[in-house]
């Protein structure tokens, strides 16, 4: 992309114009492309949010959100995911400075926190199904399981991706394409936490306070 930007602070003779500088470095192109994919993924989540918002009152005589949601579990899940986003950021810093031990440590803590989040969420789903609040019980529950389940599926795939990336760091070291992939992973992981902020607010907190 060659958007002409105003770079007033830098003398014009010092920099070639954006069109003369040639194509952007691969790192920027890869990350920008992945950023656009992530935005499309968030649009998909927006459609699921819209469906949930429209169906939240359709409980068909079954249990409502206020009756089902446990705020303690949700709080622990939120803290886990938030801190895993933080450790993912620290892992990115370690990758940029090419430090192996810190990268593996950051990845391990990120994975552990994400796994705890996933475990809690699966336990919540199973307990809801056990008392009869299954996805087929009501439209509200179908929308709930679809939205929150889709987010959980993304988290699962993210954990698989993280594992594969650590294997690639072990095999290839901090090669350029490994760094690009790790950059894409951290974008993905932060975006998942952003979506979770939405899920927490719209589904759990608004459900509990209505």
């Amino acid at each position: 992309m060659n958007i002409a930007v105003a770079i007033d602070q830098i003398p014009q003779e010092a920099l070639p114009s954006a069109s003369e500088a040639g194509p952007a470095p691969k790192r920027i192109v890869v990350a920008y492309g992945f950023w656009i994919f992530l935005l499309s993924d968030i649009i998909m989540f927006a459609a699921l949010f819209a469906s949930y918002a429209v169906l939240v009152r359709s409980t068909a005589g079954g249990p409502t959100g206020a009756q089902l949601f446990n705020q303690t579990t949700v709080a622990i899940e939120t803290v886990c995911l938030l801190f895993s986003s933080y450790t993912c950021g620290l892992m990115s810093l370690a990758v940029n400075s090419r430090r192996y031990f810190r990268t593996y440590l950051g990845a391990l803590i990120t994975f552990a926190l994400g796994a705890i989040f996933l475990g809690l969420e699966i336990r919540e789903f199973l307990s809801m199904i056990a008392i009869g609040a299954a996805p087929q019980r009501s439209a509200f529950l179908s929308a709930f399981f679809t939205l929150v389940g889709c987010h959980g599926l993304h988290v699962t795939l993210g954990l698989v991706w993280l594992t594969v990336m650590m294997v690639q760091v072990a095999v290839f070291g901090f090669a350029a394409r490994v760094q690009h992939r790790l950059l894409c992973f951290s974008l993905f992981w932060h975006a998942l936490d952003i979506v979770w902020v939405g899920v927490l607010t719209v589904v759990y907190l608004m459900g509990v306070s209505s």
Partner: protein
Amino acid sequence: MTEAQHERAPGDRPSREMDASAPSEFLVYTIGLFVAVLLTATSFWTANTMLLWPGGVFLGLAVLAIAQMGIHLVFFLHISSGPESTNNVLALAFGALVVFVVIAGTMWIVADMNTNMTMPSSAPMSMGMQH
């Protein structure tokens, strides 16, 4: 690589010219985490408090959620208003526009349809079945 930095990848480290005056990257992440934890705690308090009327709770939760998303974008994803972030900000703005249209549009359309289905004066079929 010493090519001119016209662009920055989303989520990437800040540009070199800013390194001298900007806080260290570790501090940026830590501040972001701290503020996010604060916003999360405030959200939980807002949802459970008796001090606000229900509309205020809804509004407060929405504002806190948007604020926390902004904190994530700025502190974890390094989305800034600088010239190297322009492409990323434009893409994000467009994404936000589509998200808004999808959610608001769906809620408006379905609410409108819902109203049309429950008012007897606008449903000739229900009147036809009343005898």
